[in-house]
């Protein structure tokens, strides 16, 4: 009797807890969607104008995509706006990593893949089996930047450069008051404390971008190739951008790297980078867009793979800039998904689409590049 009472009571408590979490999470989603719409409407000019820019496909259908988790939040924003405008089309994007996305694309399971890096020649060859009469191409779609975040008591502006960063992340510089850092930050009172350098514990595109920068602009102090897996000596690791941001937040004298949105939402200080330009470049979307605008297209034909110059010395060009791609077939896309695919990508590359993701911490593509991408989207067959 006693037992039964205890159980039903516990069940009741559990039920109450469940109900309250459900209602909480419901509130959460509500908030998000209203944020999203306000974000896109603000950029579109007025609430009525933003959805009008989305041109729906004549025929609806299901559009499947998968891949990069770095661009998943951007796709979520687009998906919300796109499905609000085009109710006949359903869009599904599952993360799972760039590698998994490309694999699924080359198996013909999905209409497009999101990827942090441009296709390798072997992957392009493999795609010819799926893209009848064509091959897979890279379309730059989601720009971003990797921000160097730090947490030093009493210091809210910090300047670093490539060689110093390489030494910090490889444990060659271990104190904040090291002469190399002090020289870059005249007048800043740096503590005599140990540097807690933090990196990602799992393989990550963010790490690949940072190490790409360190290998190119580190003046030979970064002895490892650009890779998704961390290779540097020492330091600590945390899982995921969220984990890294939380660790920086709770660890004094720490430094790490996260994408801009995580730096913004966690209110972390971002370091400016001395690239050799007349003054240090701040980690802002505008500065990253400037870098994207000067990036060279290295893809051939319809492929628009970009080569971002990490060692840029141009004024106001933030060096640790990245772009992630949508991978589609230039010819030979599946007939039933092609109209929706073109319609969706036309929205994402449009000004409204790019401004919408700019509001959540991404870097909108510069106009010239966006026009190039749009030309390729219109030519998809």
């Amino acid at each position, binding site marked *: 009797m006693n037992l039964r009472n205890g159980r039903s009571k*516990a069940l009741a408590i559990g039920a109450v807890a469940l109900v309250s979490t459900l209602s909480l999470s419901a509130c959460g989603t509500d908030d998000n969607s209203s944020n999203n719409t306000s974000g896109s409407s603000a950029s579109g000019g007025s609430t009525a104008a933003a959805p009008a820019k989305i041109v729906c496909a004549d025929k609806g259908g299901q559009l499947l995509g998968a891949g990069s988790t770095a661009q998943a939040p951007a796709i979520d924003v687009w998906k919300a706006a796109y499905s609000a405008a085009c109710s006949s089309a359903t869009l599904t994007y599952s993360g799972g990593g760039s*590698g998994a996305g490309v694999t699924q694309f080359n198996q013909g399971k999905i209409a497009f893949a999101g990827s942090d890096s441009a296709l390798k020649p072997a992957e392009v060859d493999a795609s010819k089996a799926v893209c009848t009469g064509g091959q897979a191409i890279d379309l730059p779609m989601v720009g971003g930047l990797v921000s160097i975040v730090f947490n030093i008591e009493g210091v809210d502006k910090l300047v670093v450069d490539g060689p110093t960063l390489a030494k910090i992340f490889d444990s060659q510089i271990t104190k904040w008051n090291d002469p190399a850092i002090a020289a870059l930050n005249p007048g800043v009172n740096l503590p005599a404390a140990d540097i807690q350098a933090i990196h990602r514990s*799992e393989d990550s595109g963010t790490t690949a971008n940072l190490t790409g920068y360190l290998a190119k602009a580190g003046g030979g102090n970064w002895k490892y190739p650009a890779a998704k897996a961390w290779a540097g000596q020492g330091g600590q*690791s945390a899982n995921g951008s969220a*984990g890294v941001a939380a660790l920086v937040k709770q660890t004094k004298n720490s430094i790490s790297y996260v994408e801009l949105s995580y730096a913004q939402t966690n209110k972390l200080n971002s370091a400016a980078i001395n690239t050799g330009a007349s003054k240090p470049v701040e980690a802002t979307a505008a500065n990253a867009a400037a870098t994207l605008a000067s990036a060279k297209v290295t893809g051939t034909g319809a492929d628009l793979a970009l080569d971002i110059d990490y060692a840029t010395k141009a004024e106001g060009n933030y060096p640790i800039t990245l772009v992630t791609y949508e991978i589609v077939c230039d010819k030979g896309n599946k007939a039933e998904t092609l109209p929706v695919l073109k319609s969706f990508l036309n929205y994402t590359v449009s000004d409204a689409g790019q401004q919408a993701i700019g509001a959540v911490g991404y870097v909108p593509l510069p106009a010239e590049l966006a026009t190039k991408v749009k030309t390729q989207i219109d030519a998809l067959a």
Partner: protein
Amino acid sequence: MTSAPPADARGRARRSRGDSRRGDSVFFNLSRGSGILLLVIMAAIAGFLAYRSFLALGKNEGNFLTSFEWTPDAAKPVFGIAVLTFGTLVSALIAMIIAVPVAVGIALFISHYAPRRIAQPFAYLVDLLAAVPSIVYGLWGVLFLVPHMDGLTSWMDQYLGWTYLFDQSSAGVPARNLFTVGILLAIMVLPIITAVTREVFRQVPRMHEEAALALGATRWEMIRTAVLPFGRPGIISASMLGLGRALGETIAVATVLSTNSVLSLHLLDPGGGTFAQNIALKFNEAQPLGRDALMASGLVLFVITLLVNGAARMIIARRKEYSGAAA
């Protein structure tokens, strides 16, 4: 008149025996089928892991058993399980050292000390701990436990630093180390060990306990002479169940541990890694070779778990002769 009922009864008996034979054979085949199915599944998992590992091991340019690095997707693929084996065993060992005595204490409290009214809800509460998803433990660990470990770790560094194990290389580092992971794992395996040992302690024959009390034993002496010897195989198998979970725990470890490829006996320094954590973190972005390499490490974990379980079975089988079975 008199012969009729026996014939009827005999007929009924035969019929019912026939039924029970059919039931017997159906049940026998069902249970045999389940047994075979289990073996087939185990063999399929082992075969799959072995095949994929075989693919990866041929391309490994390091030593699989002694290399520290895990870079199977690099231009020169090198991957080894030394750090992972060490981290897995050490964190599970710490968890066991902390969890087993506490779990036995809780189980004794529930089965022998606590008043009925408290024991029931208390047991229920402990069981509830087992239902918390491991990601929640992970988040609790990283957001609450790690910041609150600072005091303990610097105390241990100061007074136990001479043991080398508890010597901290540099102060002010968040405690995302194997020791903290061990504590977190201890909390996670506590309910499993407690639940099983509690049930075993409940099975102790009343006669044994009363005999001990009648001989003038105090309650503690009764527990020591009657309950604990009877429950020992149960404690061991419960610990092995818990150890299995500690060895295989994935996401909580991945969330809390700061990983690197250094094998260090300084348990308070962040670093190291475990099999399951490594698989969870590396799988998403792994290339085909990297995936096969992770399978190989999975196979090793599989073998370690088998060995541990086998050892536990042997211990129990030996103990049974003079304690549990004699009752």
